[in-house]
């Protein structure tokens, strides 16, 4: 049996190691709870906040 998750376009940034293995047609053995990826919105918001913090006064 299999579970497939489909995320909407450009909402998640999948962890790099998983993408790299998959691009080699290699499955990655994972357990429930391991990190899968990060929401792009939050990340970009975070980066924006970081940029805000670095803003020259």
């Amino acid at each position: 049996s299999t579970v497939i998750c489909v995320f909407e376009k450009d909402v998640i940034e999948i962890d790099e190691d998983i993408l790299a293995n998959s691009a080699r047609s290699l499955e990655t053995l994972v357990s429930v709870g391991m990190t899968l990826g990060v929401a792009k919105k939050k990340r970009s918001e975070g980066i924006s906040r970081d940029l805000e913090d670095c803003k020259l006064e």
Partner: protein
Amino acid sequence: GHGSSRDTSESEREGEGGSSRISRLKQRLHVRGHHHDHEGAGGEDKDGGDRHHHRHRIFRRRSRAISGTGSGGLHQKLISADDFAGIARLTLVSAEMKFKDKWLACVSFGEQTFRTEVSDHTDKPVWSSEKKLLLERNGPHVARISVFETNRISRNNLVGFCEIDLIEYLTQDSDSDFEIFDLHDPSSPELIEGKISLSCSIEDPMETEKSFARRILSIVDYNEDGHLSLSEFSALIKAFGNQVATDKKEELFKAADKNGDGLVSVDELAYLLAFQQEKEPLMNCCPVCGESLELSDKLNTVVHLTLCFDEGTGNQVMTGGFLTDKQASYGWMFKLSEWAHFASYDVGLNFGASASHILVFDRKTKRLVEELIDGKIVLSMRAIYQSKIGLRLMDRGAKELLQSISEKQGKKMNSLESAKDIPKFVEFFKDQINLAEVKYPLEHFKTFNEFFIRELKPGARPISVMERDDIAICAADSRLTAFKSVQDSLRFWIKGRKFSIQGLLGNEICSSTFLDGTLIIFRLAPQDYHRFHFPVTGTIEQFVNVPGCLYTVNPVAVNSEYCNVFTENKRVVSIISTADFGKVAFVAIGATMVGSITFLKEEGDHGKKGDELGYFSFGG
């Protein structure tokens, strides 16, 4: 009982001892010395003495043959060659009944019963269904043939029957290819309810060997060109449990490749099987039932394998609805699933069967690990999902077969008796199942399915950065692949030509934002913890049940251009509405044997990432 209408007098029967019967039966056989059969292109013997010797070997040598398999409900039984009379090909051709209806016929022989397909609505049903039966001198001789009318009101109502002693039938001289028998009324033997036409013949042992060779060839002849390459040949030999070294395989291949064209044809393989098996056994175990064949002689090996292959689609339907022998011989392969071998096919795994390897990257240890999968399972999956004939069979009853096998497996795994398989399963996967993290002790599980959907102790699966809902987590213990887009998934993994997000989710749920979305595939293996969890925090908007097939979800099928596993399999599509990821489609897909999908949440329920969402279990 009620004798057949065939004109065989008692005195004639009494006058013939068993040896006389067998000698007459022998005369009906067209036994040929196979050495000469191959060497002489026409298949004719050059030496009568050798022919006699061959007959002698068939009937007199004390050896073993198997009248059934351990895997499909038939009774496994060793018999001596003295008892072996031959393989009888019994064909129920047609019948003439007194009224119009839909008809089916059953053959009961020994402890086995087979049935034909249901005919059209007619008074002259035609079935042309064939079944091979092992005839033993001291075994069952009498085939009882019953004809049933079948309709919605009175299902399978017995209308007429006859009984035929096959040994007698076969030892009588007849120029006709078929015989007609009266069908007696079950309540009044004097009444005749119709006539049935059937034929029965003993299969030529050489033909048994040749047709078996053709069947073997078809397993690995994925492109149906009638030839094997060295790699296909090696896979075949390996799957038959032969551990010979690579150079030895090459040597054997060269020996088989008489014309040196780099390919082995059907005839060349037939030659190899007939002779090499005597010098140095090529087949050490039966791929169907796993029986060790090392002690049996060549003929009985072939008889065993022929009957096992024939069992194919089960002992209920003659030829299983498939059209040809070749198709029917695929039936057994559909039963070979990576999910089933602990209960039904354990013998095959533990005795000489070879294992293949699937490479997986273990994220925890950061190492490549090899996962073992039985060689013949890989072989059968390739034959089913990556060949043209496999594709054709899917439209000719194989889908229904997978469904039926899965339902049967579900019932079996829900029985109290199935609990005895749990320790065996745990032992087999002792390096991969950590009992310390299972919530209940083994004694708690009353059925195998209960163990299969075992819960884990709280905290056994730590959830990454629990306080942050913007980090998604893995939803299942699994082998995972992930792709930024469908195009990537098609490039690297999913080869089914018809795959699409719309096909996966269905029109009801699919929105345009999913079409170019990111795809994560969690594949669960038999030994895995089988509950799946929320990958993200959110609210379940809806569930949509999508009925479908139960193909395997093994990469062998997913990587096949012929098979569209994800868009054709039975599945439940749910939509989780989240604050951080928008909508996430969560699709639970059933597979062969493990087709039962249960959700523990309902529409409108909220779940935190890592919360249990549902589980897969054995069943249809």
